[in-house]
């Protein structure tokens, strides 16, 4: 080991720290780019969901094109920052955007196909958005948490539809499936809400939003996150909100069945007074 010369004693430390500084600066810049993109993706996804949130599938496409464009650009811009080692390094910075986008994507998918987009489909979809920068990773956690949020959207969708049409939306069922909507609806205003419960087709054939919500709820409740993981905590929080969302639709439907006739069309069931949730619950 050589004897360090007198003045050398200070500069190596500064040189070392200068090295650290440039490394950390690079890291922070990358991190901020990802966070910014995540925010923009979140905002655009929320806008998509808002517009989608109309009981008519016809509204689905046009007005949202610009937001899909924003999302595409954002993912493209940051895909380079999210390659290899960095895919998980900035995972927690992009997860917000990923989840929100997942919510929009799965909701749109539901409105178009009446089923749940699979993880593989969603993963491939997001990966493609990375374009030349390389695929962007959508983790299973992002996917699942996005689906949790999507339940809230379905709830809004169902409540709004019930308020405007006076029935639970079942009209979205594919044409070859038995449609519940066509069975109980004679005409919008004079709909007899008590009759359908007896004249409805057997339960197994029924497909409406509530049935889908319940099915989703069962699936989400069935998941067992690994103990001690961050995902466990995240999922737990969303689980409460998700359950309340399903219950809100059930309560609204109850209100519709019991008192539906007495109420004018366009009336929105005021659940906020009946059930006040202690925590942050998805509002309408």
């Amino acid at each position: 080991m050589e004897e360090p010369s007198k003045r050398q004693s200070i500069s190596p430390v500064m040189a070392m720290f200068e090295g650290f500084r440039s490394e950390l600066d690079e890291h922070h810049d990358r991190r901020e780019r990802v966070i910014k993109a995540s925010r923009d993706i979140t905002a655009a996804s929320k806008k998509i969901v808002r517009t989608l949130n109309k009981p008519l599938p016809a509204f689905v496409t046009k007005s949202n094109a610009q937001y899909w464009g924003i999302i595409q650009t954002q993912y493209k811009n940051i895909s380079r920052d999210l390659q290899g080692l960095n895919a998980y390094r900035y995972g927690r910075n992009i997860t917000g955007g990923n989840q929100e986008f997942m919510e929009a994507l799965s909701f749109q998918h539901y409105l178009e196909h009446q089923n749940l987009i699979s993880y593989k489909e969603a993963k491939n979809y997001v990966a493609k958005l990375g374009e030349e920068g390389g695929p962007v990773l959508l983790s299973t956690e992002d996917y699942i948490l996005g689906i949790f949020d999507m339940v809230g959207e379905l709830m809004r969708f169902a409540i709004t539809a019930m308020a405007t049409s006076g029935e639970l939306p079942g009209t979205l069922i594919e044409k070859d499936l038995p449609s519940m909507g066509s069975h109980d609806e004679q005409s919008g205003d004079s709909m007899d809400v008590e009759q359908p419960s007896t004249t409805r087709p057997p339960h197994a054939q029924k497909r409406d939003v509530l049935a889908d919500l319940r099915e989703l709820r069962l699936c989400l409740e069935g998941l067992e996150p690994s103990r001690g993981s961050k995902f466990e905590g995240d999922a737990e929080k969303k689980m409460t909100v998700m359950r309340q969302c399903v219950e809100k639709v059930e309560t609204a439907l109850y209100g519709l069945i019991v008192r539906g006739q007495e109420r004018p069309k366009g009336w929105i069931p005021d659940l906020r007074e009946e059930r006040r949730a202690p925590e942050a619950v998805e509002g309408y």
Partner: protein
Amino acid sequence: MADRSGMVDPAIFEDLQARIDEETTVREELREIVQSLEKQNKAVQFILARAHSTPAYACTFGTSTLYRSAQLTTPVSKVISDASVAVEDQVAIISKLSQAASKLPYYKWNTMWSRQIQDATFGILLCGWLGGNGSDSKPGRLLTIEEVGGIMKVPVNLKDRDAFHLTIEEYLQALISLVDELARLARNSVTLGDYLIPLLISQFIKDLHAGFQILNLKNDSLRRRSDGIKYRVKEVEDVVYDLSLRNLIPKDEKDEKEETGGVVVEQPGAW
């Protein structure tokens, strides 16, 4: 409800659960290794803590010539050799962790061991500062991140591939722990009658403080902890002040301080 016409393809959630279960297995395997590392960290700390109560350098470094060439024969050399043995066990566990973790995406799992790796780094740094870990029994040396990685037998600051490594953040966190520990050692060595070590520590901490000053830290734990360094600088300055006020620092040593004190880094401009 008939699955056939249902909304959710059951395969989706079966697949998800399978993925989660896989992760649970990985998590348990890692947790076991990390726990044994934590245990070993404590063993190393336990040994190194004796430095606070071991009369060390006063006799050995009575004069500056001795200071440079001393081979420690005082009890502190026993602390260092004991610690070095414990560090070897530590490194063995880290190798095991490195092997298991290199199969996985690093940043997906690193929160599981980051704390323990910081503590292990701190132990190695302190041992190196006291004169062990290839420091040739001379106190006051700062092991660079590359040197720590060399001792741990792991790569550092990886960017081009995804494998286990020591990050800059972990190294910096360990440096802050080292500063805290040395501030304590400065006082304790005076209690033991060693009036030179505080001078060495004072310069060392000042150099590190200057280093941290040039970093652009965000509002994270590194920032919050590094904010405390200035208080450590002051603490040690107070010790030095107390000593010089009472003329406890031998005159010739005061002059030598400039030469021997401060951070000694052997790495020539690797950055």
